[in-house]
């Protein structure tokens, strides 16, 4: 008995472009966890679900213009970063200070220790203040669990450059956390 093979992203995208709306549900289910975890590292807990949905809605809306020059996952990652940036732009427009909500009542969910939650908020703030390429390499390694050679392949850099970038990113993060 042969197991049904999962359709590739490219096939699903072609089906969506041909008007098959169910194909997008399959893509959504495939990438939901990835997008959610990435968003959760950089957005306050109370807005994680909303921003995650915004990412997929934007993907659905602009999928017609996706030409397949990069992988769908890469394209979606760029879209996610754009939505996160948009979130903070809106937030900063609403209130002049602080840049990032320092305390977030929703972070104190049942079962999670207060200390960890506070540390998460501090870490999230520190991450949000890092240059984009620093934050990206940290998220790729820690959240998406990509190996350094995979990050190198994805970003088109050599392995040494990625490791060096990673160390600079961790050093910058350390300095932010020390402030």
């Amino acid at each position, binding site marked *: 008995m042969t197991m049904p093979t999962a359709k590739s992203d490219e096939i699903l995208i072609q089906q969506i472009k041909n008007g098959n709306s169910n194909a997008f*549900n399959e893509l959504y289910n495939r990438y*939901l966890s990835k997008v959610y975890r990435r968003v959760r590292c950089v957005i306050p807990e109370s807005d994680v679900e909303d921003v995650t949905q915004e990412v997929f809605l934007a993907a659905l809306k602009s999928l017609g213009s996706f030409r397949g020059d990069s992988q769908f996952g890469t394209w979606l990652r760029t879209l996610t970063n754009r939505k996160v940036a948009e979130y903070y732009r809106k937030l900063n427009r609403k209130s002049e200070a602080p840049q990032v909500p320092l305390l977030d009542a929703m972070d104190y969910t049942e079962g999670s220790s207060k200390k960890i939650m506070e*540390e998460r908020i501090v870490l999230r703030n520190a991450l949000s203040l890092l240059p984009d390429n620093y934050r990206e390499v940290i998220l790729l390694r820690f959240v998406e669990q990509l190996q350094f050679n995979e990050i190198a392949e994805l970003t088109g850099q050599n392995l040494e450059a990625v490791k060096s970038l990673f160390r600079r990113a961790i050093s910058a993060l350390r300095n932010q956390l020390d402030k």
Partner: protein
Amino acid sequence: MTKFKQNTPGLDDLLADFTDRVLDEKNTDIASFADEELRDLEETILHLHRTLPNEAPDRATINRLQTDFKSRVQKAERPSRPAWRSRQYRQRWALAFISIAIFAIIFIVTPLSLSGGGNLQGTAGLQPKSIIFVLIAGGGIISLIIWLGRRQ
């Protein structure tokens, strides 16, 4: 503040190896006591590993997100209401129509009432008094329209 050493590929490799071990849940002891920078960075790696929320959403959250996403898509696909159906749009038209009607009534009625129903022969058109009255009334209505428009 951690001092960053430039051009130290050895440190890059050591930190990368340490990160791999931490993420593979292997040996997570900080062994690099010889170098202060590396020790600080390894501590940061451990902090990141411990603190970053990395759990996948649970089944209930996934179900809720799926349902919510479907309703958002349906809402986005629904055609937006044409402008003429909006309350504000209709109010503006109603206001404009009423204003024009009032202005027309004043314009017709005032000369008649001021001239005593048109008994005098040869009094064509408006008299100076009635013109002033019409202008004042018209000005008042226009001011009222502008004021109401700004309030909306």
